[in-house]
């Protein structure tokens, strides 16, 4: 390199006096220019003669001298419906997932779910903004090359095909907001000392989606899911890899129970981060509550 910026600057520093408190200065900032208020020194301060202008007793904005103003006469028309209540699924594309796998941000030897993606600290779900999970989008369906066990909240047919073509599995799974908050940041959740929540079933309008084998819903009949896999392979023209003879079969077939949100941990357990142990209450009613869908 002809002239090295950093090296040159450091060579210069060696010749200069010691950097001390009395010879350092900030860069000149030209963001805020002090405006000279020329009117402030004049007699009438630029306000003119008498009246509302000089005395600052203006009418309120929109006031029409007592006549009902336009803002009140025009009726309110709400066009947004229940947008604030609708579920949202922030997108993450197949290309992004592939990039995470390439750069080893995500461990493919474990199932990839909300926790794996959020633990990279690159993506987060905000329950206050009605985020219910991730929507796996189609961008990168041609380049997706990994054999993974994916668990997301919304998919299309093309994405399922892209994943299953490489020998992976994909499931769509519903989580209620409390569970989404726990999955987004498990460490913060465990530090609260609350019992691991049991996941609720989907609401009315989502139940159909998650029971449909074409969407690989977690509530769908597993036999129909296998049929759907074969049909999709025929539709998109790829050979469906055989799962039974796969070395990572146990990984690909790992599924959570519908009430379970963390792999290996059951609802009702309390994680003690300080002592590095798990507390499991023995009360009958408690156990029954966390074992059943009511």
């Amino acid at each position, binding site marked *: *390199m002809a002239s*090295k910026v950093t090296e040159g600057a450091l060579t210069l520093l060696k010749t200069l006096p010691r950097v001390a408190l009395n010879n350092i200065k900030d860069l000149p900032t030209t963001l805020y220019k002090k405006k000279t208020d020329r009117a402030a020194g004049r007699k009438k301060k630029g306000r003119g003669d008498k009246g509302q202008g000089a005395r600052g007793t203006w009418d309120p904005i929109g006031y029409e001298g007592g006549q009902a103003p336009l803002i009140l006469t025009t009726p309110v028309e709400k066009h947004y419906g229940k947008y604030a209540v609708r579920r949202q699924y922030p997108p993450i594309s197949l290309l992004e997932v592939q990039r995470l796998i390439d750069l080893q941000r995500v461990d493919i030897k474990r199932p990839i779910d909300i926790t794996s993606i959020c*633990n990279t600290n690159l993506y987060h779900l905000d329950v206050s903004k009605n985020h219910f999970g991730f929507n796996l989008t189609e961008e990168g369906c041609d380049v997706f090359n990994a054999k993974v066990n994916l668990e997301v909240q919304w998919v299309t047919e093309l994405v399922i095909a892209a994943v299953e073509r490489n020998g992976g599995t994909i499931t769509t799974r519903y989580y209620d907001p409390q569970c989404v908050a726990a999955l987004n940041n498990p460490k913060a959740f465990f530090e609260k000392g609350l019992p691991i929540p049991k996941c609720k079933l989907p609401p009315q309008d989502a139940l159909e989606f998650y029971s449909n084998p074409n969407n690989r819903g977690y509530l769908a009949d*597993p036999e129909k899911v296998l049929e759907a896999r074969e049909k999709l392979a025929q539709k998109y023209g790829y050979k469906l890899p055989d799962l039974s003879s796969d070395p990572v079969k146990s990984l690909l*077939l790992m599924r959570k129970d519908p009430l379970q949100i963390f*792999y290996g941990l059951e609802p009702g357990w309390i994680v003690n981060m300080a002592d590095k142990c*798990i507390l499991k209450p023995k009360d009958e009613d408690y156990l029954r509550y966390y074992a059943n869908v009511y």
Partner: protein
Amino acid sequence: MAAYTVALFRACSQCKRILKPVSAAIDKSHVSKLWSVLEGSKRLLTTAPPQSTDKIEDKSEYPVDFEISYDEFKHVLPLLPIETVPGVPNHPSYPTPSGWFPPNLELRSKQKYLVRRTKNHMLPVYPGTTHKRIEHIKTVQHYVHIKKIEGDIWALEADLRLHLQQKTGLPKIKTQVHEVGRFIRVRGMYADEVASFLFGRGM
């Protein structure tokens, strides 16, 4: 509503967590044909009450009886976030399926300048916009921000400008060089062209 409750019940039956009377114990023998298809799936809470192999500390203080497990804490460890960005593993070929490739150190060492990768191993090339009023008309100005420049920053600016002039055919490409902040800003929506230029130089 009726259709919903029926659908819900069907869903419940599929996951085998049916509403049970208070006094009944959890039915262990009801093995579902559905779950046997997915071999190796873990079933919850179908075991008898836990064995008393727990290490009991002073439990007289607590109102509820509980069991402590140290072995199962290993399931918590993969759930903890990764605090430091991991290094990139060696791939058999580049670019990787997502289109990433590492810097070409040989090619890069021959250049007069250098653009370092970010901590996430990506190029520090960022498109951006500023909003201005030009003669009271609101306009959006696009720019490309290139950070982390080492070496001869003016040579990089000259090469980049020439490259973009050839690519776009425009007579003038406006650039800003900030020597202290060690960045360059190029006016226009040329993020892809800038990235390909830098990749071509091995950055």
